[in-house]
C-alpha cells in the first residue's frame, strides 16, 4: 500500500506491505538503524519511537498505522545545533555502556519530560520502566534524565 507520513520532520512517501512491522520499515527499508530491535515482543523498549509525540514500540506496529502520522526516531532528536540535551546528559553522566538500549531510553525519557518536565527520581524510574538495560546501568541513566530535566528548566 502507498502511505505518507512525517519522519523526523521530513515527508516520506512509501509503497510498502501493509503488515510490514514499523521497526523493519525504519531499519531495513529506510536505513534508520538508531531504532533497535531487542525482544520483538514489546518487553524491552529498544525499538521505542515517538508517534504523534507519544512513546510507542515500533516492533508492535504495522506500516498501515503510520499513514498520516508524525514519527520521531533517535535520529530526529539531534539537530544542526548538535545533540539534544538528553543526549548531552547521557554522555556527561556516563549513562551509556554497550549503548543498545540508549536510543530507546532517550526516546522514553523525551516522552516523559514532555509530559512531566520536573520528574522525581521515582517518576523517572516509572517512566523508563518499559525499557531494559542489559548492562544494568540504570543508576546513571536516571542521573542523566534528572540532569536533563534540570537543564531544561534553566533554558526555558
Amino acid at each position, binding site marked *: 500500500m502507498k502511505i505518507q507520513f512525517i519522519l523526523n520532520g521530513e515527508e516520506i512517501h512509501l509503497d510498502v506491505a501493509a*503488515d510490514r512491522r514499523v521497526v523493519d520499515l525504519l531499519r531495513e527499508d529506510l536505513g534508520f538503524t538508531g531504532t533497535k530491535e531487542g525482544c520483538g515482543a514489546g518487553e524491552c523498549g529498544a525499538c521505542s519511537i515517538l508517534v504523534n509525540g507519544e512513546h510507542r514500540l515500533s516492533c508492535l*506496529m*504495522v506500516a498501515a498505522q503510520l499513514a498520516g502520522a508524525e514519527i520521531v526516531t533517535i535520529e530526529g532528536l539531534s539537530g544542526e545545533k548538535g545533540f539534544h540535551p538528553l543526549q548531552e546528559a547521557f554522555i556527561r553522566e556516563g549513562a551509556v555502556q554497550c549503548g543498545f538500549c540508549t536510543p530507546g531510553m532517550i526516546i522514553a525519557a523525551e516522552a516523559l519530560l514532555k509530559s512531566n518536565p520536573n520528574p522525581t527520581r521515582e517518576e523517572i524510574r516509572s517512566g523508563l520502566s518499559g525499557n531494559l538495560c542489559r548492562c544494568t546501568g540504570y543508576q546513571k541513566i536516571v542521573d542523566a534524565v534528572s540532569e536533563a530535566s534540570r537543564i531544561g528548566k534553566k533554558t526555558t
Partner: protein
Amino acid sequence: MKNVWLPQNLTQLWACLDNEPDARFFAGGTDLLVQMRSRKVEAAAWIGLEKINEIKGIDEDKGSIRIGACVTHAQLLRHPLIAGKLSLLHKAIATLGSPPIRTMGTIGGNICTASPAGDTLPPLYVLQAEVEIFSFKGTQRLPIRDFISGPGRTKLQQGEILAAIHIKPSSGTDLHHFEKVGQRKSMCCAIASFAALWSLSSSGRIEKARLAWGSVGPTIVMDQDIEGFLIGKKLTRETLDRAAQLVEQRVAPIDDVRASADYRRKVSGHLLLRLLHFTQGCARRHIRDKGVADPPIG
C-alpha cells in the same frame, strides 16, 4: 502479505467486513503483533479499530460510566472520572504493562484477549461491568462474566465487535482493594491478582463482599460460597483465615514458568487477608481526619 484495514468509522467498518468476512480485529496490537511473530494466529486480513470514534471516549450518563473499547490504558489513567469514581480499575491499570504498552493497549483489547491474567478483568468483574457489543444489525449488552467464556475466548460472534464497557460506580462507603503479585513491578504478567469491594455495617459486620482473583483459574475466579461465608460476619483475622482456606479450595491454578499452582493457591488465600489490613488502614485515616472512630472495626 496480509491486508490491514483501518476504518475511520462504523460505516466503513461494516463495508470492510463485507469485503473481508474472515478478517480478524485488533486494537492496540500489543498482543496481536507478538502472536503474529510466533505464528500463533493466522488471518486473511486484519482490521484495526483504533481510528473508529464511535468506540472511543469516556462519558458519564445517569450515574453510569461508559468507556469506549478503544480507549487506551494511558487515557484511562489520565481521566478524572476513572481516578475519581473507578479508583479500583485505576489501581489495576497502573500495574498493567509499561508506559508504551499502556499508551498502545486498550481496555477493549485487554477484555477480548480474555487472558486469565488480564489486569483489568478482576476489577471489572467486581464492579459488575457490562459490555456493549456492536454488529451491523444492532447492539446488545452482556455482563462481563458472561461475555468471557474461557481462556482466550469470548462470546463475540463473527461480524461483532466490543464497542464499550458500562460501569456503575459503587457507593462512597464501599471499601476496595486491588493487588497484583508478580515477579517484578513493570512489564509483569500476574502470578495472582485480587480485586475486592466490600462494605461494613456500623457494628463492623460485613454487609457486602465482591471478590475476584486473576491468574488462578481458566478465567477470573469469583465464588458465591466465599462471599456468602463472609456476609454477616465480623471482619476479623479469624473470619478471614477461615475464608482463605475456602479460597485455596476454590481457585484452580496451574503450574507455569512464573509460579507453581501450590504457590498461587497459597497466595490467593493470603491476598484475602488484605481486607483487614486495608479496613484498619481506612479506620485509622478516618480517626486521624475526623477525630472519631467511625466506621468501627470488629
